[in-house]
């Protein structure tokens, strides 16, 4: 059988350090994420205050449980975590060697 078609290019010289080689850059990225999270988190707290003062709502819940403050933030965080843990559990049941079907 013919082998895989690909063009990996010539040996490419690496021009030294790259953006994320510096751990500080990762830390800065995470700091930005935390700030963004804090902002979107604060919006849900600000919403009822804003409403009582101006009568304007940033978001009006369609369902009572969805109107629970920080519903989406909590749901997103928990769902993500649950998915990862469930998948790790699934792995215990279904994981086999890479060449399982080739043997």
């Amino acid at each position: 059988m013919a082998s895989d078609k690909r063009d990996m290019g010539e040996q490419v010289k690496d021009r030294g350090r790259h953006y994320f080689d510096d751990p500080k850059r990762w830390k800065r990225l995470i700091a930005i994420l935390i700030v963004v999270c804090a902002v979107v988190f604060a919006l849900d707290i600000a919403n009822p205050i804003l409403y009582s003062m101006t009568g304007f709502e940033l978001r009006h819940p369609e369902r009572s449980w969805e109107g629970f403050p920080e519903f989406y933030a909590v749901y997103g965080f928990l769902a993500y975590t649950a998915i990862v843990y469930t998948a790790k559990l699934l792995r215990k049941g279904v994981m086999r060697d890479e060449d399982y079907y080739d043997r």
Partner: protein
Amino acid sequence: MIGSLPPAAVMILGALLVPLLRGRARTGWVLLLPVASLAALLSLGEGEFGQASIFSYELTLVRVDGLSRIFGWLFHIAALIGLIFARRGGSALEDASALVYAGAAIGAVQAGDLITLFVFWELLALSSVFLVWARGTERSYRAGIRYLIIQVGSGVILLAGIIAHARATGSVAFDHLGAETLGGKLILLGIGIKAAFPLLHNWLTDAYPEATYSGAVFLSAFTTKVAVYTLARGYAGTDLLIWVGVAMTMFPIFYAVIENDLRRVLGYSMINQIGFMVCGVGIGTEMAVNGAVAHAFNDVLFKGLLFMSTGALLYRTGTTKCSELGGLYKSMPKTAGLCIVGAASISAFPLFSGFVSKSMVMAAALEQNLDVVWLFLLFASAGVLHHAGIKIPFYGFFGPDSGIRTKEAPTSMLIAMGMAAFLCVFNGTFPTLFLYPNLPYEVTYVPLTSAHVISQLQLLFFAVLAFVWLRLSDREPHELPSTNLDADWFYRRFGRGVALAAGGVASRLRDAVAARSVAVAGSAIGSARRYMGPRGVLGRTWPTGTNVIWVAILLLVFLLLYYASTPVTSVPPPP
């Protein structure tokens, strides 16, 4: 001239010339065909064309209406982008099969009757398998065979359903079918295989990752989206599909988390995204079907973009396995950036395309008071963020440095990815300019509201925060070279084992029967030889005298029998 040809024929017939062309001539020709085909489609306007009749059934080769037109647009755009992507290193075989494949998809969504649909349905299977085989490896050959068996099988079930439907109704028109009749059920099953319904889905995750780097881009665009179109046409409002769709959004996300091959992750991701569409079709309201169709449109673009960026990785590094990749942004920064656009689109960040289409399905679920469905879909949205939003770009291009250094993707690939990325942002930012006006029903939904933007950002950013926390505390699943058992185990291992065991029993049975037959035949020959052989009683030579005695005895016996059988009658005295 083009106007008189059905649009599907332009690319299918045009593909015949591809093997004769080389280099720039072939590039020019294959890029001209989708454009010419789209021109043919747009010149038609709405209506039905190409009527014919066969065995007293009325065929309609081309039907252009709101639903088929948007899919027509989509498949032309996908074909053009895919063909541009395949310019570097793609063989004439790949070009030709991609053109026939795209033409078949266009023909299928324009089919006004079920017989025409069936013909293009099978052509989809036959043309696309070469995109898997073109990889030229043993694995791709075997995966292609499995793919072909299942795809052609789906067509056979479809045909059985069409026959049952035609006998019951006397018509082969392709309109709403419903799952109440036998024909309707069988057709739904045939479509369900192509749409990768749960337990029928493994052909997709099996074959797509084994295709060539550009083949997977075409594969991701056509087959499953034709299935979504046929569901929307024939089964809108079928309640069963709501839960089938929910199951499709849910189970692949767990597999995608632990899968090592990025293109197989995308395979599971496809099933997850099709789940949103199937759910929308099941809900069946105008907004839900609009959402399903809009999401199919966007999915082809962002999933195509993700398959192209992982295809570029495969082209440059020879692998798409998480456990072997990492740090590739250093060599391929533009590809990494475009991959992030695709990841943001599928995760439905505001201003990216998933945001304006997935939410239509979810809003329609809430409108129909399907609160539990809505909660599942929201859960699945967090799953999409994990495997497609974070895993693909992070483990492909960032993540721990693998030490691989290569070149940026070729210009043709960057152009194709750039086009897809542009359309992802364009549809996400200005949905009312092209996407919404071309949907089958009028759109009243407004995606960019403060409520939707805020709730979506809360969901997504806190899910990203969960990723950062799990990653930093080493709770993320490690990237391990592995195979994960799925429903295909039943035919690749269990079924194969049963077949081999049955073969073994049959072979022993045959050996036993053969041995017994030989023994019986041997003894028959032995006894024949004993009586009739040279020394056998019947084979002896006899003297002539003996023969004379036997003849005399025979004559005597005959005479005695004659006398015995002649009745004794008294002779009357003479007068």
